[in-house]
């Protein structure tokens, strides 16, 4: 095969191909490397053709996985060859062999630059491609402006420009500080008008990079993207060459929809409508066809459309349509579609309101958990994990447990961790939780990390009702012939603590319990022996009246281990032996373990960490991070009593009371050993070790850190530095700091005024999330009350104190919230008339002995009843003119405004649902906005406003607001003013001076005020 005119290369490749084994191949490669090396050494005699041939050989050898540590210079030097074939090889091989930090690359910068700014198109392409693949900082510094010029040059042909776009993308991504993209939004918008689909494809990738970094600057590109989609969807002006199996370039369609997912939302109703038309067409018009390529391509577009619909928070109807499609996909035979259906359904979980529809597919998803393909099984597991909540936890977790026995090893660890987490998060009752974890240990002991069994011990310790149940269960498992060592640990521990609660049951006498646990001792490792010794000591303590036979048996074991080589075992044996001779004093010392301080589950933490590790930076994910989820988020809180977080369960503790000290006076050997040395006789503070005070008698008196009952009142305005905040509530009593809220309450409130879901309040015990939907003058809020603890919250009370203009109805709030549960309480709101007053939620609960009461402002504020509407000049001016002067039109000069750029202000207005209408006001420093206000008294009422700013002094502006209702005009004006001077909870400048609270629109001297002047 004499090909490409490089015979030597073909021969070499044939030789390699004929090698019988790896050894022969290595010999042949070594021989060739030697040959090439010698040739390069006598470089003088090499023709460009020979150089080219050897460089290809090097690349081939490198591809086979052999180190090629020479000849890089020769590859780079080919870049400067005058002829295209050599130059091309130089560029391609260089970008394969070298990376951006390679020294030789610097030598080529000048040549590369000359090629880029030169006239030869083909050379330009080669150079741009290489820089686009491996260009580093120095390239960015010296070439970025040239590349930018090429991209927008009208004299450049598409083949150069498409490469320039991706070259710029690389330079920008690698060194955003070097590449100046200020002012690129206009250029990007122009680029998107391009007809050539190759240039568009590349530019779209560039846009994605730019937008993902700063979407605000690229708003103008949004409608252009929608236009492109329309063009492709209608198959207008798409050359045959770009049609793939009848589908207009699916890759550009996908990329364009991806770019749109980086914009948080689409404000302009026309653009939004056009886009939804396209999306609807894709959703409805994609059929399953026989041709696999066509099918894949059309479904690639469909899946991207689904992602975009999810991102845009479409109407509920469309969302249900999406879920229905996905439901169909997860049941088809085609494995790719099934896989993607599951994957996208998992993403869909982040969308509100569809969880229930997704749940209808639970059976099918469970079937996929047994799919022969591990890729699909993983997706199914992820989806089940994501869709699990209190309503279906039992089914899902039991399904996972069942699957555990047959699952492949690669998945078992993940599976057991996920099952444990779900069981903990959503347990309908705690005995079920104990069942699940014990089953888990039984079925997959090797894959159950210590965290999992530590956690179950914590739950049992903290819930008295659970203790006899857990002990009985543990006892049952011990009857099994072969049990996992982890099961030995957890059973021994539980029985040591609680077997006395079972004493009257058959087979549960101290002697029998001891017997069955001791049977396991020869089979366990040294890490388990100390636990067994503790258990024996506890059994001994609980045996009343004492049983001399049992006592002798256990003492014999202690003395046997007194000389054990393992220090931990030896120490325990010595100490327990000495202690158990103390008689009644043993009772005090070995009392039951106290309750654990509440803290984050290390499992959940682990899961969160794992999620961070594999964080996908997709648009959907980014969006999910912007919104606060309604799910219970457990933070790494410090428990109220200040016990530091420790991820381990210790079994032997330092005694912490004078009482213990007294009993231990004679413990010479033990004291020398160091463990029993006493810390601070006065301090009942729990130590950092978590099973806490195994030997501490004080523990009997109460759980560590449970302070005396106090009433903690958390003021709603806490953290709000400004007492004059018009929205703040002041009526707060004295505050104690025992239960501190997490995060700033005022900030959370302000954030919720601008968005519809998020956290309203959080402290170490509870998280209150909120999610709202607004339609005209009605609103529906849902309060999510999440108990973060492993025990219940009691006396939960929620009272709504509505202002006179709101009618509010809160559904029943349960009095107790079970451990780790979340309850949802819908709250209906109706707006009667315009007002800035704010509703308050008076919320209280008890946890242990502390009670908490907070008063929280609810984000049912004026702007929630606004609906942005865009008006044209023809609609605006007659309306503006007809509302002349007070009280329907009010004007005011506002001073002390938080300085912001006009663009920021426009964004703020848009987020307040006041739609900025660009272009209506000829003065670029002014801003005109419109919106509709809904209340029962006003019905839908159009409001228009205009802000005139002074670029020289951003702290003042003139504001004119008009509407058909005097109260509305006044309230809206005051509302906007509050937003301009105070958001978002930044320390506020002194209260704004109001020059003329209701001055008429008459005296207009400002020459910039053209619009108002005209009217």
């Amino acid at each position, binding site marked *: 095969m004499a090909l490409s005119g490089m015979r030597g290369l073909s021969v070499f490749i044939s030789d390699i191909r004929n090698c019988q084994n790896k050894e022969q191949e290595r010999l042949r490669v070594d021989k060739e490397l030697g040959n090439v090396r010698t040739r390069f050494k006598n470089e003088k005699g090499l023709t460009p053709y020979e150089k080219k041939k050897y460089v290809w050989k090097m690349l081939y050898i490198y591809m086979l996985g052999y180190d090629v540590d020479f000849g890089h210079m020769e590859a780079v030097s080919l870049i400067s060859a005058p002829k295209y074939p050599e130059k091309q090889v130089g560029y391609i091989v260089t970008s394969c062999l070298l990376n951006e930090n390679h020294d030789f690359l610097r030598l080529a910068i000048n040549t590369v630059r000359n090629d880029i700014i030169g006239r030869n198109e083909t050379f330009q392409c080669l150079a741009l491609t290489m820089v686009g693949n491996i260009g580093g900082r120095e390239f960015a510094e010296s070439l970025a402006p040239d590349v930018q010029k090429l991209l927008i040059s009208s004299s450049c042909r598409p083949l150069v420009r498409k490469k320039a776009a991706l070259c710029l993308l690389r330079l920008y991504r690698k060194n955003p500080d070097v590449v100046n993209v200020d002012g690129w939004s206009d250029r990007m918008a122009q680029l998107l008008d391009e007809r050539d689909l190759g240039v568009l494809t590349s530019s779209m990738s560039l846009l994605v990079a730019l937008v993902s970094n700063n979407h605000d600057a690229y708003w103008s590109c949004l409608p252009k993207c929608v236009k492109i989609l329309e063009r492709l969807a209608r198959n207008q002006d798409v050359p045959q060459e770009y049609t793939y199996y009848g589908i207009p370039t699916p890759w550009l369609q996908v990329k364009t929809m991806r770019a749109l997912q980086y914009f948080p939302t689409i404000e302009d109703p026309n653009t939004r409508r056009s886009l939804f038309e396209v999306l609807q067409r894709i959703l409805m018009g994609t059929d399953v066809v026989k041709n696999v390529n066509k099918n*894949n391509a059309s479904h690639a577009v469909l899946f991207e459309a689904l992602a975009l619909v999810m991102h845009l928070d479409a109407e509920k109807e469309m969302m249900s349509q999406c879920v229905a499609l996905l439901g169909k996909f997860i049941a088809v035979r085609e494995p790719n579609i099934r896989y993607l259906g599951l994957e996208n359904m998992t993403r869909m979980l982040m969308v509100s309101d569809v969880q229930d529809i997704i749940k209808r597919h639970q059976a099918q998803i469970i079937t996929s958990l047994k799919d022969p393909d591990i890729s699909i099984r993983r997706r199914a597991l992820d989806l089940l994990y994501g869709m699990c909540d209190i309503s279906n936890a039992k089914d899902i977790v039991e399904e996972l447990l069942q699957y555990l026995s047959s699952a492949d090893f690669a998945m078992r660890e993940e599976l057991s961790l996920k099952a444990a987490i779900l069981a903990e998060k959503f347990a309908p009752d705690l005995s079920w939780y104990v069942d699940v974890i014990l089953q888990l240990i039984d079925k997959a002991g090797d894959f159950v990390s210590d965290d999992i069994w530590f956690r179950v011990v914590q739950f049992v310790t903290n819930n008295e009702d659970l203790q006899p149940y857990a002990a009985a269960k543990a006892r049952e498992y011990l009857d099994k012939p072969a049990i996992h060592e982890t099961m030995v640990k957890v059973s021994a521990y539980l029985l040591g603590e609680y077997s006395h609660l079972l004493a009257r049951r058959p087979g549960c006498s101290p002697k029998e319990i001891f017997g069955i646990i001791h049977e396991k001792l020869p089979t366990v490792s040294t890490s388990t022996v100390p636990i067994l010794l503790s258990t024996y000591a506890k059994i001994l303590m609980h045996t009343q009246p004492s049983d001399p036979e049992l006592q002798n048996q256990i003492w014999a074991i202690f003395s046997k281990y007194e000389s054990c080589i393992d220090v931990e075992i030896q120490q325990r044996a010595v100490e327990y032996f000495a202690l158990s001779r103390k008689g009644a004093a043993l009772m005090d010392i070995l009392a039951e373990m106290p309750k654990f301080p509440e803290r984050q589950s290390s499992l959940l933490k682990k899961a969160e960490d794992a999620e961070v590790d594999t964080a996908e930076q997709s648009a959907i994910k980014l969006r999910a991070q912007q919104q606060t989820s309604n799910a219970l988020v457990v933070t790494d809180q410090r428990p109220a009593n200040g016990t530091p977080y420790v991820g381990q369960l210790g079994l032997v503790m330092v005694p912490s009371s004078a009482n213990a000290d007294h009993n231990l006076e004679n413990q010479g050997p033990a004291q020398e050993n160091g463990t029993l040395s006493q810390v601070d006789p006065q301090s009942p503070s729990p130590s950092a070790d978590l099973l806490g005070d195994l030997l501490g008698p004080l523990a009997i008196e109460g759980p560590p850190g449970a302070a005396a009952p106090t009433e903690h009142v958390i003021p709603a305005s806490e953290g709000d530095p400004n007492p004059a905040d018009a929205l703040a509530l002041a009526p707060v009593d004295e505050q104690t700091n025992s239960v501190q809220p997490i995060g700033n309450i005022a900030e959370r409130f302000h954030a919720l005024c601008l968005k519809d879901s998020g956290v309203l309040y959080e402290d170490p015990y509870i998280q209150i999330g909120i999610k709202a939907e607004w339609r005209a003058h009605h609103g529906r809020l849902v309060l999510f009350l999440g108990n973060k603890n492993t025990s219940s919250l009691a006396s939960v009370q929620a009272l709504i104190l509505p202002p006179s203009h709101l009618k509010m109805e809160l559904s029943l709030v349960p009095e107790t919230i079970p451990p780790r549960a979340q309850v949802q309480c819908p709250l209906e709101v109706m707006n009667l008339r315009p007002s800035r007053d704010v509703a308050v939620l008076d919320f209280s609960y008890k946890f242990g002995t502390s009670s908490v009461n907070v008063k929280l402002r609810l984000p049912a504020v004026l702007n929630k009843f606004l609906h942005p509407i865009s008006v044209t000049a023809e609609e605006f001016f007659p309306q503006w003119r007809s509302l002349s002067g007070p009280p329907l039109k009010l004007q005011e000069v506002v001073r002390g405004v938080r300085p912001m750029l006009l663009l920021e202000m426009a964004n703020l207005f848009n987020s307040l649902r006041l739609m900025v209408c660009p272009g209506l006001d000829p003065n670029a420093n002014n801003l005109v906005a419109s919106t509709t206000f809904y209340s029962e008294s006003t019905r839908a009422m159009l409001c228009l406003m205009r802000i005139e700013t002074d670029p020289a002094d951003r702290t003042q502006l003139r504001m004119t607001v008009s509407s058909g209702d005097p109260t509305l005009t006044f309230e809206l004006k005051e509302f906007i003013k509050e937003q301009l001077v105070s958001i978002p909870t930044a320390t506020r400048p002194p209260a704004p001076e109001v020059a003329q609270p209701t001055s008429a629109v008459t005296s207009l001297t400002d020459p910039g005020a053209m619009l108002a002047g005209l009217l």
Partner: protein
Amino acid sequence: MVNKQGQTRLAQYYEYLNLEERRALEGEIVRKCLARNEQQCSFVEHRTYKIVYRRYASLFFLVGVDNGENELAILEFIHLLVETMDRHFGNVCELDIMFHLEKAHFMLEEMVMNGCIVETSKANILAPIQLMDKAS
């Protein structure tokens, strides 16, 4: 591109890995993909990446993407590459790619740059190669 014996026929990286890492990575993903059958889907999760792969007779095309990619679009992009090679070589086979490694590289370079799609029109992709063939 890997044949069914696991021999690499073409490799192109858009993120630099040293030789050790490449060898390990290729070994792992090739083993994973080759072990799969026709009834299984074309996507394999590997570390934080996803492999989208497609098999043509004895040759496997493997593309590693991050989690944000549209898998089916990549799957069809593989097919577009194969069709492009087919248009150039006529009934493309493993040997064509082996012995015309440079042409395969040229085509790929016209289609992908820095991990992004540059061009999807076969005519445009092949134009420079045809130009060169004419010249020689």
